[in-house]
């Protein structure tokens, strides 16, 4: 059965998030820019059983079977249209060290002449010497899926694996209708947010520009994006993890804000500037069943951070906490609208002053955990503007994984060693030095 055979909804308009990525694709010639990927190690399983579970999962999430097609009307954006079959997006390959990277490269190469009418996702099922299934790689164009979407698919895969093939074949038409509705809801929320928030944001940006000198920018380079590559990782565990979680609870500060504060402190030390634009990836599906669909709805919120060099750890954390809450109130205002308003007032965006945070509350859907032999690894994150700190919390194993991503085209003299280790060390010191200057925690 293919998605198209039983489907009544045959064209799905893009979400606003997807439209924004499509504009990015048109502006850039790098087909690898929007490649996202994740790699999983499984306990050994029979390939046939796994493929059956994966096929049910794909049918439950038929966006995976969609390609982009030019619109029938004069719209500027293509539609998602279900044209593919399961076999078009799944490969079975024997395992070797290079298979993950090769699989991602192969998929992204197919986008070099454009992304219309091309598969936008590939699942590579990896087999070991005995022929058993031992791993799975997923690579996708970011226009198809965001992190939340991947999590929804993981949860479905876990359900189908647990059921051992005894699950109903999902009604593709119903799911595509839900997908269309999710995009409609997202579009409505985005449209409602602009008149509600535009004045407030413009006022905030003007006040901020006034406070630090209008149009001031260290670097006049445009805020272009580049492919993100991993520059370093560190795992926080054991007593260090417990100390950080305890600080979060005692001070009533969310863990993501503590990580942001440590990252800002190190970023400040590297740049010798206590000003930056912090960008947080927002999860807009929270408590919204209409949006609980595998697709791409990603948005981010930016907020300027500025503090005196002598500010204490507590001062920096509280400043960031308030700033984060204020920024999160405009979660539906598209980040491209915010950037437009920012540039209208500031004239330049100092890209070296942009620090992006992606806080992920769990390494994968909890239901999938029993089937995995180790925590999954994010292999590709799509485009970045500058330094990006991805933090994955694993409450089950009591670990916090910090990954530092940066531009693939970053010049050698801008590469800083041991950034992840420095952020981890700062996080560990924050409880003991709560009332001392933040600068001291990073050795300034």
């Amino acid at each position, binding site marked *: 059965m293919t998605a198209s055979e039983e489907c009544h909804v045959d064209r799905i308009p893009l979400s606003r998030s997807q439209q924004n990525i499509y504009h990015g694709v048109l502006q850039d010639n790098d087909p690898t820019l929007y490649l996202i990927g994740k790699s999983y190690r499984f306990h050994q399983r029979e390939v046939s059983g796994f493929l059956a579970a994966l096929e049910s999962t794909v049918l439950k999430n038929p966006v995976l079977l969609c390609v982009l097609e030019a619109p029938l009307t004069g719209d500027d954006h293509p539609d998602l249209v279900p044209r593919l079959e399961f076999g078009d997006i799944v490969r079975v390959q024997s395992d070797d060290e290079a298979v993950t990277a090769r699989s991602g490269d192969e998929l992204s190469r197919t986008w070099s002449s454009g992304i219309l009418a091309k598969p936008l996702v590939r699942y590579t099922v990896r087999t070991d010497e005995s022929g058993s299934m031992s791993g799975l790689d997923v690579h996708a164009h970011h226009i198809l899926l965001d992190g939340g979407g991947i999590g929804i698919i993981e949860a479905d895969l876990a359900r189908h694996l647990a059921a051992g093939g005894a699950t109903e074949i999902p009604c593709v038409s119903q799911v595509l209708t839900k997908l269309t509705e999710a995009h409609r809801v997202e579009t409505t929320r985005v449209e409602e947010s602009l008149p509600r928030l535009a004045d407030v944001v413009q006022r905030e940006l003007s006040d901020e520009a006034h406070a630090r000198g209008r149009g001031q920018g260290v670097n006049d380079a445009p805020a272009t994006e580049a492919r993100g590559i991993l520059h370093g990782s560190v795992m926080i565990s054991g007593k260090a993890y417990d100390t950080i979680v305890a600080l979060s609870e005692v001070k009533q500060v969310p863990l993501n804000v503590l990580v942001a504060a440590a990252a800002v402190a190190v970023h400040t030390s590297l740049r010798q500037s206590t000003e930056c634009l912090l960008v947080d990836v927002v999860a807009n599906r*929270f408590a919204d069943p209409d949006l609980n669909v595998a697709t791409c709805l990603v948005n981010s919120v930016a907020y300027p951070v500025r503090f005196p060099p002598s500010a204490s750890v507590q001062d920096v954390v509280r400043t960031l906490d308030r700033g984060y*809450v204020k920024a999160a*109130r405009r979660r539906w205002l598209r980040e491209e609208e915010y950037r437009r308003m920012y540039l209208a007032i500031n004239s330049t965006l100092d890209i070296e002053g942009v620090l992006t945070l992606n806080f992920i509350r769990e390494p994968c859907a909890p239901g999938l955990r029993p089937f995995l032999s180790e925590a999954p690894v994010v292999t590709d994150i799509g485009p970045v503007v500058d330094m990006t700190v991805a933090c994955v919390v694993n409450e089950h194993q009591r670990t916090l994984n910090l990954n530092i991503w940066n531009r693939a085209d970053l010049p050698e003299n801008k590469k800083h060693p041991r950034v992840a280790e420095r952020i981890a060390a700062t996080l560990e010191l924050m409880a003991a030095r709560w009332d001392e200057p933040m600068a001291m925690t990073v050795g300034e």
Partner: protein
Amino acid sequence: MSETARETETARERVFAAVGEVLYVAESDLVDGDATDLRDLGLDSVRFVLVMKQLGVSQQAELISRLADHPSIAGWVHELEKST
């Protein structure tokens, strides 16, 4: 004031105190009164966990699920009253 009204006020005060602490909310921020969607005031999944701890319900999975479905002060007061 009736007993029910007093309990309602207590639950409302408790919820508002927790929300105010975690979301830096003042009464003037509640543009739709107690029906204001707390997500529009900065509530996300991470901060939701903190508010649940503030409310002392972090071990009650079913109640947490209902509170997540109704992210407003009015919704939480209603759910907390139902649970007592």
